[in-house]
């Protein structure tokens, strides 16, 4: 009897629970709907569109024809694209370590608590990030100007010929300078936040063990920063592969130095807006997207392996 009575109760309860679960999942979907809509419209749809147009070619003579993977094969063999890719890789190899080192030093200095006016310094370092890159490039273009720019005036004051910072040899370092200036504060903030998350007990224990500030930075803070550094590294690599704004603005000042294929993104832009080759540009954009994904995964795998070996 008791058992019989329990059965329907149990049954009813599970039915009710199913209904609740269903109702819950409807609610969940409803709440996710705004995000999913925006995501599909602004991320998935353009991606599919780019994929779709990348297998066609629109010619002035002959119109639009299906060409399969031809655009991709052409991109892989395109020396102009290769030149741009090598340039951004060089940029990543030199600029990213310098920028991350400066950010790291600044974060450690701020976190040591031995610096006066640390709030002002923190804000000051972060401020360039808030300056739109278009404005920043214009401003730096003026600073770097050899004739009437700041550099030209300073060199002129001591009677020397200014270096051509926007010339062929120094343009890439100059762009690196601009990007470092604008991104140091952002990365510093990532590091600083990670340092703040270290439990104070560890510091207390270390000082009982007689560790000084340097020892603490080396043995506690740097290991604690590992995930944040990985994050900053991945972001920086993605950002550098997509280098566009700075060279595009400086192009107006030195069109013969910043060629139409100076960076892969600038090349894709020139192809579609100056050459009307949207299809080929789409193929390049997708290939560059793949390269970015591979680079990000590679960095993560390498660092995960390094961590395992350390242990």
């Amino acid at each position: 009897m008791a058992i019989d009575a329990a059965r329907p109760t149990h049954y009813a309860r599970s039915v009710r629970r199913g209904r609740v679960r269903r109702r819950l999942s409807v609610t969940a979907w409803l709440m996710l709907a705004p995000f999913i809509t925006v995501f599909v419209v602004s991320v998935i749809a353009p991606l599919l569109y780019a994929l779709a147009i990348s297998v066609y070619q629109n010619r002035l003579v002959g119109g639009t024809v299906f060409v399969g993977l031809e655009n991709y094969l052409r991109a892989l063999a395109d020396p102009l694209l290769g030149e741009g890719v090598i340039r951004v890789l060089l940029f990543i190899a030199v600029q990213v370590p310098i920028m991350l080192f400066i950010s790291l030093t600044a974060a450690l200095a701020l976190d040591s608590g031995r610096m006066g006016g640390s709030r002002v310094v923190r804000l000051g370092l972060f401020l360039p990030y808030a300056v739109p890159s278009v404005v920043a490039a214009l401003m730096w273009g003026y600073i770097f100007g050899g004739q009437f720019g700041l550099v030209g005036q300073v060199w002129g004051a001591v009677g020397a010929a200014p270096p051509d910072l926007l010339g062929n040899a120094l343009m890439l370092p100059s762009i690196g300078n601009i990007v470092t200036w604008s991104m140091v504060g952002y990365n510093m903030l990532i590091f600083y936040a990670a340092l703040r998350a270290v439990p104070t007990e560890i510091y207390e224990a270390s000082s009982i063990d007689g560790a000084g500030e340097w020892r603490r930075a080396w043995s506690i803070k740097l290991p604690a920063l590992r995930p944040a550094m990985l994050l900053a590294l991945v972001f920086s690599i993605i950002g550098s592969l997509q280098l566009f704004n700075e060279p595009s603005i400086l192009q107006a000042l030195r069109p013969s130095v910043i060629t139409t294929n100076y960076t892969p993104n600038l090349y894709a832009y020139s192809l579609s807006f100056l050459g009307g080759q949207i299809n080929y540009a789409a193929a390049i954009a997708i290939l560059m997207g793949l390269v970015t994904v591979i680079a990000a995964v590679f960095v993560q795998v390498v660092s995960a392996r390094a961590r395992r070996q350390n242990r």
Partner: protein
Amino acid sequence: MNTRRTSPIRRVGVAALAASALVLTGCSTADGSVDEPTSDEPVEILFWSWLPNIQTTIDLFEDAHPEITVNLENVGAGEEQYTKMQNAIDAGSGGPDVAQVTYDSVPSFAVTGALADVTQHTEADLDELFLSGVLQNVRVSGATYGVPQDFGPGVMYYREDVFSDVGVEVPETWDEYAAAAETVRSGSDSYMTFFDGGLPDFAYMGLWQNEADPWTVDDTSVSVDLGGEGSQRWADYWGDLNSRDLLVHSTMGSDEWFRQMGDGQIASWIVGAWGLQALQGNLPDNEGLWRVAPMPSWEAGDAASSQFGGSATVVLEQSDRKDAATTFALWLNSDPEAVESLKADQGLLPTTNAAWDDPAFLDEEIAYLGGQPARQVFAASAESTAPGWEWLPFQVYVSSVYQDTVGGAIDSGGDIGAALLDWQDRIVEYAENQGFAVTE
């Protein structure tokens, strides 16, 4: 200009675009034109133009032609408008009936059949109305794809003060120009002129003057030859001055460039006549310092010239009001009333024979140029425009890769002639990709 173009920079760029967009004056008149709609059937046409004051001139047209209403839209200058136009053309509808298009972009629309031959929609004789040196800008394979609005006859502006300080005469030939460049360089802190690695228009002016025929188009076949005598002569001449440090590298239209111009560091500027407006607008303090002279030529007394800048008013093939559209385009650029308005309200250099026959216009003394009757020089240049120049149907691309090839050689003081051939390679590769049959 491209836009992002990338093309030369805004302030000058706008002047160049305006130059092209200018007015036509007119003697004869649109009233004689053929296909006008019957006056009791009102027609509305859509006009795309980026001239800031063009509505003033449109109002005059609507007074003269009450049966036609013109709706003006400014959808952006140059490339920005062309992109939208191309989209409408691809879609088959939604475009304007009439539009402003710079000369270097007329063939790219014409080759795809997007433009109407205006001579099919009017009885007016364009050859009688317009300067022949300007009409060649709208003619592709025998058809006339638009009405010329303004143009930029090539001239040389120079700093009279710098020239007289170092004691050089105004050069009439390129040899004299090169000698003057040396005198200016050794006798002052100035340079004879600048060399801009991002300014294909300067090369176009040179090649056009030399009748170099670097490229020709015939329907779907294109031939490209930048190794020919006319092209290489230009390259050798400027490459030589460049390698002797007689030219300063500067980007036309940049702040730095305007300062160099204003300070007399750049002693001369070879450009379309519209350069005067750029100087007046940006360097008002220089009033009285500049003068204008004809572009130097290769042989003394052989006044061959070329052009830089200018626009046409085109009629779109997809329009179903092509007669009314043509009536408007012709009136806008040739009716005497319109031409007056274009000169006064738009600051354009007209393209009609009548305008240039008018002594009041031709002989007017320009205070900025120390009271010189500058338009006589413009007119002489227009008259001696070298024949045979054409634009490729993908000129925007051709211009964009000049900086990649010739620009590098200019910067490094390298071999400009060899760089022209690199440029040719890029042009040929593109043309083949676009389905043209290419001969080199």
